[in-house]
């Protein structure tokens, strides 16, 4: 049985904050197929295109028939834990300070035997589910979980090392003026975050939902204007050391393509709020997040980037908006590499039109802000890196994977 976490005590100011260390993160190009699956929370292994053998570890040729056709496919993740061992000492500096560490050999029903990290509630001989997870180095590892959920299983230290669970973490939601920001604050508060700081720009301007937001449990309003470098820096100066998860809810949704817009005023606002806002937040909070990746139960864990799925493919009806979102996606990819030394995940959460005022003329399906809030909590609990929320986002992603040119024409017609 997992010992439930208790709320971490305030930090001893005389203690040095430990430097985040990373487990070994080198993988072959082929093995990055596991990382791609782990990023989205899929369990995929190579399956031989010729003889159907399930292959692990990743290889360039099928060990049974020598075929070079070894695509990664969704595979049944069930198996049995054949043997376990507890490592008590290591020369690896990352694992050395996390000892003891349990690993074991799992025989998958689908065929291969896999050496996996073990959840604390799993014992030798028991049935298990395997999951691919991203470790602190950002690469895929396999963890074996109990066949059925156990009480407090998310609190297991080896599991929590792989996730960004908001429980007992302190969160900053960057923009609480919007329905999305408010839904996010509520979802994270309910998920057990110890504090949810919620940024509000232009406090002199009232906004819908304000009263309710102020009444949410463990929510604290802070002045934060993503378009104002001074405001972002001041907010970070005061609160950055107490932010473990940052959720950038900034949004700026306006219709119009590139030619259809008259002038650049709105485009500049878009860039200020979204792309430059993301940069401001990243520059102000990123260094502290990166330094606090191994700071105990409430270590810095994630930078969540809410981004329109039209970052991946332009929707000309919202063409200038799509371009700005694409810039944010590109920035997030860079940010991901830059925060990795701290073991901090950059989580991109893609979504389509929302059930909000700025998508008023768009027909359903549209995503409720509350659904987006739940999806972000889920992604953090699962330690995911790329998440597609809702029918439209999933559909765009699937069509893009099959034929990008077809999608371009379809979105532009």
């Amino acid at each position, binding site marked *: 049985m997992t010992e439930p976490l208790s709320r971490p005590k305030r930090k001893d100011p005389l203690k040095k904050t430990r430097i985040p260390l990373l487990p070994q993160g080198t993988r072959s190009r082929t093995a990055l197929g596991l990382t791609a699956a782990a990023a989205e929370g899929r369990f995929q292994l190579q399956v031989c295109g010729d003889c159907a053998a399930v292959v692990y570890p990743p290889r360039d040729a099928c060990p049974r028939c020598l075929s070079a056709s070894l695509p990664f496919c969704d595979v049944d993740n069930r198996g049995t834990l054949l043997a376990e061992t507890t490592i008590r000492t290591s020369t690896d500096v990352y694992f050395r300070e996390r000892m003891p560490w349990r690993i074991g050999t799992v025989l998958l029903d689908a065929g291969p035997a896999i050496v996996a990290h073990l959840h604390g509630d799993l014992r030798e001989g028991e049935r298990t589910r395997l999951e691919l997870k991203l470790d602190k180095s950002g690469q895929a590892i396999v963890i074996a979980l109990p066949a059925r959920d156990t009480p407090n299983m998310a609190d297991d230290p080896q599991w929590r090392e792989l996730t960004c669970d908001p429980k007992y973490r302190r969160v900053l939601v960057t923009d609480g003026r919007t329905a999305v920001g408010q839904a996010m604050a509520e979802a994270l508060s309910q998920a057990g975050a110890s504090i949810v700081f919620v940024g509000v720009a*232009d406090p*002199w301007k*009232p906004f819908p939902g304000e009263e309710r937001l102020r009444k949410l449990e463990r929510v604290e309003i802070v002045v934060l204007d993503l*378009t104002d*470098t*001074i*405001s972002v820096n001041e907010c970070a100066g005061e609160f950055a050391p107490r932010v473990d998860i940052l959720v950038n809810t900034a949004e700026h949704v*306006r219709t119009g393509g590139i030619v259809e817009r008259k002038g650049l*005023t*709105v485009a500049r606002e878009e860039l200020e709020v979204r792309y430059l806002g993301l940069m401001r937040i990243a520059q102000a909070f990123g260094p502290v997040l990166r330094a606090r990746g191994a700071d105990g139960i409430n270590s810095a864990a994630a930078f969540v980037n809410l981004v329109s799925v039209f970052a991946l493919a332009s929707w000309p009806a919202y063409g200038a908006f799509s371009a700005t979102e694409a810039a944010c996606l590109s920035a997030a990819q860079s940010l991901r590499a830059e925060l990795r030394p701290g073991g901090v995940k950059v989580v991109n959460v893609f979504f389509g039109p929302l059930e909000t005022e700025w998508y008023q003329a768009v027909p359903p399906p549209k995503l409720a802000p509350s659904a987006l809030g739940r999806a972000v909590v889920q992604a953090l609990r699962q330690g995911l890196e790329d998440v597609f929320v809702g029918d439209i986002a999933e559909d765009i992603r699937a069509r893009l994977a099959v034929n990008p040119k077809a999608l371009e024409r379809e979105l532009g017609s």
Partner: protein
Amino acid sequence: MTTTANAIASPDLLAFAGAIAAGEIEVVDLTHTLSPDFPTIVMPPELGQCAPFRMEEVSRYDERGSAWYWNNISMGEHTGTHFDAPVHWISGKDLPENSVDTIPVANFIAPAVVIDISQQSAANADYELTVADVEAWEILHGRIPPRSWVLLRTDWSKRSGRDYVNMREDGQHTPGPCPEVVRFLVEQRDLHGLGTETIGTDAGQAFHFNPPYPAHFYMHGKGRYGLQCLANLDRLPPTGAVILAAPLKIRRGSGSPLRVLALVPRAEKRA
């Protein structure tokens, strides 16, 4: 006064400067500090917006410039304490010398009268200055001289944040002139321009007046100017102050943030 050519040729500017240095003429700053959190006018979100003041550090004695500190700034023409040129409004769009770069520079220095409606405004945020108010003021202080700034003291500049903008579900609630008084001031008193402490020379609810935004409409239609987001009007006498308000020389600019100074003769001279 200017009866002879000699008198025009030799005004004593050095005596004027000496009076400032001696404190006989007080210089009062009527300007709010340009800062990112100072409210700008709020338009419906689907319309174009006035950019707030923003500042990006270029270098601060660091690797970006070792011995110097400087910033790049950005803002709208109507951000912070600012000047409205006639071209700002559709009624003034075809006038000559209607933009900040073409206005005769002598117009940037003019006398001011201060009409105090601070008590009425404290009681009623939507208080409208009326012709009767102006006539009552004139009984006490004399007829408003032609080409004077009329500065509307509401003490609004002492408010901050939400109280300053006073935005409710039906829009902004701040005092300003009624349509008739603007016409009266422009046509009967030949005013130079109107200066207010609020965001805009018009009342917060002036969109619903006829015509909408009468101060903008009538004043700019007659080539007169506006000053808004002024401060320290409570330090000015009802008459006798001179305003120095020179906007930036922006090509075809509709307005500009600026430093507004008032020259005020010391109330009582100490012997």
